């Protein structure tokens, strides 16, 4: 195991050890890195891994050259005087060089003490502000420059209160798959979930509560006003969402059934193949205060459906949030705010505060829309970037998977 602190100051406060050489990272796809070094800084004795047998390079080869270009990586190790480095650093503002940094000396990790040093940084207590719900703050939607604009998000639930003033200016496509019921929400659960995933982020009547506040909303009613639904209605809703090109499909529904239900394995995979990621609630069947950790039920236990656990305002796992079920697909994949979540509710009540993995799921669906907008990724690539970018927590991975879902923070190019 090799330790690198190249991303910032080391946790122990010591200065990083350096070699006196520099690491130059070229822009993605730069066709002629040696040419860039020559033209920019006059570095002439440039070796290129492409000139070596199977691109195998040793320490002596690097020492003998003023610069060694690792072609497959788009990176060079450069020995240069101050004037040359200044020229390269100045060029890093241009198109062909991404960064210039000092080469660091790395050490084999002596022990794992340092791994626990950061946990105090997580001790926190989120609360709703006048501007944003605690959930939007925790996932970083409050500070994200992305809004989900141009991305379609499906929420398959009990529908939406189509008269709700907070959605008056939004693009909403609503369809009911429940016999003899319209997409108008006669329960409330659906309106709450649509609010968290796609509702307003800036609001005069209370804290903003929607993660992807400019996403195109696809409301698929698959659960009745009395709160029940069947496979055939849910599958019809997924089919509609996939055909509509929804990048994220939010399903805050589940059954306390351990067995993986085969249709959802096929459906999760086929949806991903077509660029639609299904996100489902892990389930609320735990009672952790009494030693019962529960299990991820169907459909979240499908291997191709992202299972979402619920976090409280201290970013600890919620007492009801289900734990990973042994076996393929049974894991909790990620976690999101799911305790005391303020969101929209059918009029005239307008707002309601609820808890559950049902409330955590649309936080992930909304964040998925932001990543889809920010990266252009869909399907498996989108899944991967969300996992990679989630914030690890000092909580068992059995309960929180990859950790707290996070919204993209980088600025649009």
């Amino acid at each position, binding site marked *: 195991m090799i330790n690198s602190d190249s991303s910032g100051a080391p946790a122990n406060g010591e200065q990083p050890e350096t070699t006196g050489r520099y690491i130059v990272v070229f822009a993605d796809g730069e066709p002629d890195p040696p040419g860039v070094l020559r033209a920019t800084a006059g570095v002439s004795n440039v070796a290129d891994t492409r000139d070596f047998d199977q691109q195998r390079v040793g320490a002596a080869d690097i020492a003998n050259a003023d610069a060694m270009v690792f072609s497959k990586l788009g990176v060079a190790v450069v020995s240069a005087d101050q004037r040359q480095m200044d020229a390269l650093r100045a060029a890093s503002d241009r198109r062909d060089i991404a960064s210039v940094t000092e080469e660091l000396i790395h050490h084999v990790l002596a022990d794992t003490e340092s791994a626990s040093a950061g946990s105090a940084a997580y001790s926190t207590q989120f609360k709703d502000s006048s501007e944003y719900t605690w959930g939007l703050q925790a996932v970083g939607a409050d500070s994200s420059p992305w809004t989900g604009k141009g991305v379609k998000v499906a929420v398959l639930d009990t529908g939406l209160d189509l008269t709700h003033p907070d959605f008056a200016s939004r693009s909403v496509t609503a369809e009911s798959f429940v016999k003899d019921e319209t997409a108008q929400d006669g329960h409330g659960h659906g309106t709450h979930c649509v609010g968290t995933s796609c509702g307003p982020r800036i609001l005069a009547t209370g804290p903003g509560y929607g993660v992807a506040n400019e996403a195109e909303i696809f409301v698929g009613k698959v659960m009745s006003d009395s709160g*029940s639904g069947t496979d055939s209605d849910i599958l019809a809703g997924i089919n509609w969402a996939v055909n509509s090109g929804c990048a994220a499909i939010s399903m805050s529904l589940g059954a306390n059934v351990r067995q993986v239900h085969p249709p959802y394995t096929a459906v999760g995979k086929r949806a991903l193949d077509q660029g639609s990621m299904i996100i489902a609630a892990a389930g609320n069947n735990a009672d952790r205060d009494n030693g019962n950790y529960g299990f991820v039920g169907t459909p979240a236990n499908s291997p191709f459906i992202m299972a979402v656990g619920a976090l409280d305002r201290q970013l600890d796992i919620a007492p009801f949030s289900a734990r990973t079920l042994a076996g393929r697909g049974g894991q909790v994949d990620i976690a999101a705010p799911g305790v005391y979540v303020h969101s929209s509710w059918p009029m005239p009540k307008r707002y309601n505060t609820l808890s*559950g993995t049902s409330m955590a799921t649309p936080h992930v669906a909304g964040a998925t829309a932001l990543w889809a907008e920010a990266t252009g990724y869909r399907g498996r690539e989108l899944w991967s970037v969300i996992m990679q970018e989630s914030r690890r927590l000092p909580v068992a991975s059995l309960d929180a998977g990859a950790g707290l879902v996070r919204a993209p923070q980088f600025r649009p190019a």
Partner: protein
Amino acid sequence: MKITVTVAEPYLSQIGGVADQLRSAGMEIDQVLDALGMITGSVSAGRLAAVEALDGVASVDQPMGFELPDPGDEVQ
């Protein structure tokens, strides 16, 4: 009984043909979900084995039901 038929991957582009065969085998079809390769409907218990044996059928499952808590419940 109600059933959900998962169409096998190699048959996804011919889902209409699989539906025709399911009808011939005695299934009453509610929906053909083209994007997902799923067919929902019902069949008599006596015809179930014939449906399961068809080429292009990956699995036949009985649909599950899902229930949300009452709107007033604290945990959803």
